[in-house]
């Protein structure tokens, strides 16, 4: 919950509500981008951004090299699997 996980924004789904789709280690899920949108960086420009995702919110933009390094370390910490499991369980919980 506190470490978050890097992912790449692949689509903007709702500009009004600041919702997008993010790809985290191959898993696609909805993400809120309100915290990374600024006047200079409107929603449309977020596609392709690498971001640090915390509990479904993109909290910070990062560069790709940093994202990959962080993913590798989170993987060693066992956090990647945990986050992906949490996303999958959550999808089931919605049913």
């Amino acid at each position, binding site marked *: 919950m*506190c470490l978050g996980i890097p992912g790449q924004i692949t689509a903007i789904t709702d500009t009004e509500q600041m919702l997008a789709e993010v790809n985290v280690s191959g898993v696609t*899920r909805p993400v809120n981008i*309100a915290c990374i949108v600024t006047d200079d960086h409107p929603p449309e420009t977020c596609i392709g951004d690498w971001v640090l995702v915390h*509990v*479904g919110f993109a*909290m*910070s933009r990062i560069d790709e090299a940093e994202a990959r390094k*962080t993913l590798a*370390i989170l993987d060693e910490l066992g956090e990647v699997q945990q986050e992906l499991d949490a996303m999958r369980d959550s999808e089931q919980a919605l049913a």
Partner: protein
Amino acid sequence: MKYVDEFRDPEKARRLQQRIEAVMLKLRKDRGRPLQIMEFCGGHTHTLFRYGIEQMLPEGLEMVHGPGCPVCVLPMGRVDDCVALAERPDVIFTTFGDAMRVPGSRKSLLQAKAEGADVRMVYSPLDALELARRNPDRQVIFFALGFETTMPSTALTVLQAKNEGIRNFSLFCNHITTVPTIKAVLDSPDMQIDAFLAPGHVSMVVGEQPFQFIAADYGKPIVITGFEPLDILQSIYMVLRQLAEGRSEVENQYQRIVPKNGNDAGLQAIAEVFELREYFEWRGLGSIDHSGVRMRGAFADYDAERKFTIPNLKIADPKACQCGEVIKGVIRPWECKVFGDACTPQTPMGALMVSSEGACAAYYNFGNLPDLLRLREQKDRRKPASTGADAA
């Protein structure tokens, strides 16, 4: 040195280790007790253990594992409140997975679920809101917990719910604040912490400024720290260098993620939805002024505390628990009388044993248990003793 090879960049790790040793040579000279650095954040605690960083540190330098694991400091009474809410037949109670196993005075959320309560683990408050959309005849409550890192997410979710006019969604708000808690640690009479590593992702939201008082008023060095093992080693070196040079400042080791002024949109959402509570109850630490937030009156319809009656009872921790002393660094986790015996990850008495970010669970999982228990016995025999070297 066994651990250094596990680092992605062992050369860099070794260099940092040498620098830490060099600066410690200077610092060790005139002190009769080990130097203590508190890493506030549970994420840092986890990295420290995973990479065996404590074993890389020279003698006379100890890491104290602070209260920054939101699940670990959740008081039993609050878990009871969650269970009471979850047991209402009209309610779908949603929570992050970490909170499921924290013991309440009657049961944990996991037990409540096994007994038929509708408790669901969600990854995000957005998913809880989606549940509310799909189940208009049920009340969906999201158990909001965490420090400032997760506050923007719950605040923005509530704003969205209000926007859409969703009426069957609410937060059970148990968010806690970092700065008043560090202040409480600093004001505690048995406190001996010399310097702090500040939580990286809390800082990503709040920025550098809120930590200034620690350096300015308390004269303690503090470095905002990332989560990778090299980040932590580098930050340890940075606080030590401050100590050696007689400085106390806020330094930002994690500039690649933490902007000086934090995250505007996140802070705005927090300010709109939440206000400080006069005080908040912590497991192990007691009541701390302004250390939690509640929802503002304008969001009463989204506030589970106002919408439903909750027991709101204060439940004392079991007598044998020494979680508070561990959190403040007064004793090491394995020195708690029930560590590894009555309190294990399978049968946790205190919350520090529940979460993988809790110090006791970390020692239990990554340490050498027989060694630790032997150390505790030795220490009990020759009290008071110092525990310079760690056998974890």
